[in-house]
């Protein structure tokens, strides 16, 4: 479903392997940018296991997206050094930058303040919902026009991101399907790929 485009007026700073980057820099010469909001809070020791499951599915495809005028990057609030170490551990190659110290995650409703966590609710996935974690998952899409103006064109969160998880699509083709009944939560069975 198409959503209204919203001009991004605010300045955001990210850190990548070569230093500071703006949101416009993340486009890396293309006009379309996909951000995967990877759950990895500043004080976490490793990335979210469910986001890691998603990452196993999208690792390797950015080169193809690049050739349709799309740059793909994951973004997390963890400091870049933690991101880089975890990325190496997992053997991933996709771009992944840190938004540590920036409002980016908060403005796109995937990170929550200590006050919101204490209150136990925050705006996430287009509604005020109970929250327990400092960070949640999502996908946001941006467009940069010829004048360098950046627009937010799409976001989805929660189970809305299932549509980009290829493993789930394959599971949905088999007799037992996702076979997630009986767990305390649906993805309880998921592990980081080096922890099965």
């Amino acid at each position, binding site marked *: 479903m198409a959503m209204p485009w919203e001009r991004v007026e605010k300045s955001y700073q990210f850190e*990548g*392997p*070569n230093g500071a*980057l703006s949101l416009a*820099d*993340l486009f*890396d*010469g*293309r*006009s*379309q940018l*996909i951000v995967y909001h990877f759950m990895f809070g500043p004080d976490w020791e490793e990335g979210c296991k469910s986001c890691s499951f998603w990452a196993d*599915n*999208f690792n*390797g*495809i*950015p*080169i*193809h*997206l*690049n*050739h*349709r*005028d*799309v*740059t*793909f*990057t994951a973004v997390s609030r963890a400091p870049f050094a933690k991101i880089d170490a975890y990325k190496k551990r997992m053997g991933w*190659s*996709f*771009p992944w*930058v840190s938004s540590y110290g920036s409002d980016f995650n908060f403005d796109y409703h995937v990170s929550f303040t200590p006050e919101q966590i204490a209150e136990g609710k925050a705006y996430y996935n287009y509604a005020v919902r109970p929250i327990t974690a400092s960070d949640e998952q999502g*996908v946001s*899409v941006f*467009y940069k026009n010829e004048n360098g103006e950046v627009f937010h*064109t*799409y976001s*989805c969160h929660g189970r809305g991101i299932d*549509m*980009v998880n*290829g493993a789930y*699509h394959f599971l949905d083709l088999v007799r037992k399907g996702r076979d997630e009944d009986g767990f305390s939560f649906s993805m309880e069975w998921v592990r980081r790929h080096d922890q099965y």
Partner: protein
Amino acid sequence: MGAFMWLELTPKGRNELGAVKSWVKLNDEYETGDKHKGDCCCALVR
């Protein structure tokens, strides 16, 4: 499968005005010298 699902979230979509999938190459066969060869380039990947 995965790349098409991601492309469909963008303003230009699959952007395949020519023959469907005619743009697709093996991941080591995209044009040599392409500024963006590899998973990505300069700014985002070491």
